[in-house]
């Protein structure tokens, strides 16, 4: 690894100095610190919030008076901390960071590229002595025999050895390398950061983030930005239905579901159900399930959907409102929907009451008449056991429709693919940087006292220890001789 300070004998001009500044890791470390420290402030102050909220936070944190907090906040706000991740200085910091990354990499790449591309060459004996991993062993066999042994052993530990006549004494040198490309890992990692930044910028300029609250049964051709600004979609989106599913008997939501249809020039072109984590995409615009709610003053829009079945098996679907009556098909029984509750529960005395305005446990109260006596009862959508009537007829409560809206995040981001690409590149780069290394090995084989002398020199640009184990394995294979014999 290199370090940053180079001896500077000749005076440099300004461009060179700026280049050197941006090529230094020192600047990088300074920028890391700045981004980290300023971001901390941004997580303490709530971003894009009402000033009063952040003043309260300051009061809470530092136990100062409201007035002091107010003036401190005034200063912070002028510095852009109330929306700091979009403040000019934070964006400049990111750009500086990118420039640092680009220039630093460009500065070093040529040297590294040479190391990657230039094939390994045989090395003189005294240089082998200087490598970081050295071993030497004496073998009994003749050099020619030993050479074959070494070749096999090198192959066994994953190298493809080349051969050269040694410069000095009679003998040969075998040498090999693996993982030379792993030296590029760092640069690939750095490149990936730039790719991600580029993707983010494209998204910022050519995409949008908006939302759309769409009531059941309604259609929209626009979405809305933060301040109510309309964004045309280029097609129509209709919410056919919305529902919340709950875990068994609890009010713990299990899934939010919207049934959506896309219309283009009046024709239905797509139909899909979305849930959280599973959005709908059409023409580059994606709709994410994000919230839901009740249409304000929407009670008179609500439609109760029932399926009534007679004991004899005749069935009919009915849409009704509170106050309406219906007949069970094939019988004289009449039902009148007398009451509705969005969330029915029983109090301690067993008396029904409504505990929430949201549709947590919708129920209708129906009075049945026509067979002489009148029966009444609550029928609950989430509890099918309440659907059976004593007479053997059945009233299924299918839906209460039309008063809920589905809240969707609407996004168009042509940069997101590039961001993902950058993430993949980063994963590859980090893997190459940390889990691979450029390993080189030279083995010289020469005649010595009737046997052979073998000198091994090796180096790895990272994880030297684990390469050392490999080299020891090589030595062990050689010492064991051909097929365990030759001791």
């Amino acid at each position, binding site marked *: *690894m*290199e*370090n*940053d*300070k180079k001896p500077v004998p000749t005076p440099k001009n300004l461009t060179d100095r700026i280049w050197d500044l941006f090529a230094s*890791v*020192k600047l*990088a*470390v300074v920028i*890391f*610190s700045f*981004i*980290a420290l300023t*971001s*901390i402030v*941004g*997580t*303490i102050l*709530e*971003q894009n919030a009402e000033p009063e*909220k952040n003043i*309260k*936070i300051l009061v*809470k*944190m530092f136990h100062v008076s409201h007035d002091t907090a107010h003036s401190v906040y005034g200063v912070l706000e002028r510095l852009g901390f109330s929306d700091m*991740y979009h403040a000019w200085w934070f964006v400049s910091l990111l750009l500086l960071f990118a420039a640092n990354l680009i220039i630093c990499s460009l500065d070093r790449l040529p040297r590294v590229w040479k190391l990657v591309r230039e094939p390994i060459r045989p090395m003189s004996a005294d240089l082998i002595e200087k490598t970081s991993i050295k071993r030497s062993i004496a073998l009994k066999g003749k050099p020619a025999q030993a050479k074959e042994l070494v070749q096999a052993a090198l192959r066994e530990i994953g190298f493809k050895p080349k051969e050269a006549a040694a410069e000095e004494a009679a003998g040969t040198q075998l040498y090999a390398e693996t993982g030379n490309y792993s030296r590029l890992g760092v640069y690939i990692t750095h490149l990936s950061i730039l790719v991600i930044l580029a993707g*983010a910028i494209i998204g910022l300029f050519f995409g949008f*983030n908006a939302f759309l609250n769409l009531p059941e049964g309604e259609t929209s051709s626009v979405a809305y930005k933060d301040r109510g600004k309309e964004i045309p979609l280029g097609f129509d989106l209709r919410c056919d239905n919305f529902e919340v599913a709950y*875990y068994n008997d609890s009010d*713990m*939501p*299990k*899934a*939010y579901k919207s049934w959506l249809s896309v219309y283009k020039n009046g024709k239905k072109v797509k139909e899909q159900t979305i*849930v*959280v*984590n*599973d*959005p709908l995409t059409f023409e580059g615009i*994606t709709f*994410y*399930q*994000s919230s839901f709610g009740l249409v304000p003053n929407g009670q008179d829009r609500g439609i109760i959907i029932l399926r009534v079945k007679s004991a004899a098996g005749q069935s009919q679907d009915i849409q009704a409102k509170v106050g309406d009556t219906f007949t069970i098909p094939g019988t004289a029984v009449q039902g009148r929907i007398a009451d509705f509750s969005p969330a029915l529960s029983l109090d301690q005395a067993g008396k029904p009451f409504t505990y929430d305005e949201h549709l947590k446990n919708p129920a209708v109260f129906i009075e049945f008449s026509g067979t002489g006596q009148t029966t009444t009862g609550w029928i609950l959508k989430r509890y099918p056991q309440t659907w059976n009537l004593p007479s053997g007829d059945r009233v299924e409560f299918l839906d209460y429709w039309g008063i809920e809206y589905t809240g969707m*995040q*609407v*996004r168009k981001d042509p940069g*997101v693919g590039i*961001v*993902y690409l950058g*993430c993949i590149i*980063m*994963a590859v780069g*980090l*893997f190459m*940087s*940390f*889990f691979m290394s450029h390993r080189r090995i030279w083995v010289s084989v020469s005649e010595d006292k009737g046997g052979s002398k073998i000198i091994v020199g090796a180096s790895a640009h990272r994880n030297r*220890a684990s390469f050392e184990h490999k080299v020891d394995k090589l030595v062990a294979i050689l010492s064991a001789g051909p097929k365990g014999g030759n001791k």
Partner: protein
Amino acid sequence: MNSSVFFGWSTIAYFLAMILYIGHLAFKNKPVGSAATAVTMGGFAFQTMALLLRWKEFAEIGNMGILRGVPLTNLYESLIFFVWCLILSYLVIEFKYRTKSFGAFITPIAGLVLAFIDISGMSKNIQPLVPALQSNWLLAHVMMSFIAYAMFAVSFSTGLMYLITATDDRKDPAYIFWTVMVSVFVIVLAAMGFDYLTFKLSIKGQEDLIKSYLFRASFRSSSFGVSAMSFAVAAAFTFAVWRFAGGLKKIINSFDISAEILDEITYKSIAMGFPIFTLGGLIFGAIWADQAWGKYWTWDPKETWSLITWFFYAFYLHSRLMRGWKGKKVAMVAVIGFVAVIFTYLGVNLLLSGLHSYGSE
């Protein structure tokens, strides 16, 4: 058999292992060392069983399927998984570097965290997943984040041990750094212990303790006397540590472990943790956010703190490249990095969300 029984056994095993490891350090007795390793492995096996059982219980309750029903959705579950990762990394180091010296440091952390969970009465209930958490990315994201956190925890302790062995001059900034650091850790834990004892009756749960009662029994006490006393005691304690902690160096030097190995393990665990954190913590987190909310990055405090942590460790990796930064300075960066991890993991949920909510005061 339910998972908490196995968790109980593993807690006991880790405490027993701690005693054995300390005995091994003190007497250098080989059978004691082997017993320590065996007990740790036993505890690890129990904990693995417990985790698998809890996973099964969890997946069945929400009938969500094995991949989605990952029991990593609350503080209790994540602390347990953190301990599991920590012990696993410790065992790997013990076998790789053939040293048992860390055992005496790591097993008490494991035992304490598990005991803390029990004492604090943290909610162990299984909560079914809310819709946003029903994603296959959750498994990869949370699991990899915690594996990385465990790696960073290892680098924190080896970095700290490195500083202890490498400094003895009381005026050396690195010496001041680590003594103050250790003091602050001890003081914060002790102060929280006091809070717990004082407000035991009114605390509703783990989060409530930190959100509403943090340091109320000491530094933030409504009585000025108590609060002033606390600061004085804390300062005196820090001073005493600074004055006398040099003795720790002798203890660590008596271990069969050198400063170079400590430095190497610090680097290695960050070099493992960094890519895992990048991929699992940041990238998978962004993909999940993208699918769930349509925004891969929103600068919310949790995301931002993950990014801050990431920058700290990028700082560490690059500061090794600078002249004069090898050794002590780099070790300090590793130690600070873990403070950022703790804040990302606990502080954001407990402190910042408390700050951002209305009510109290």
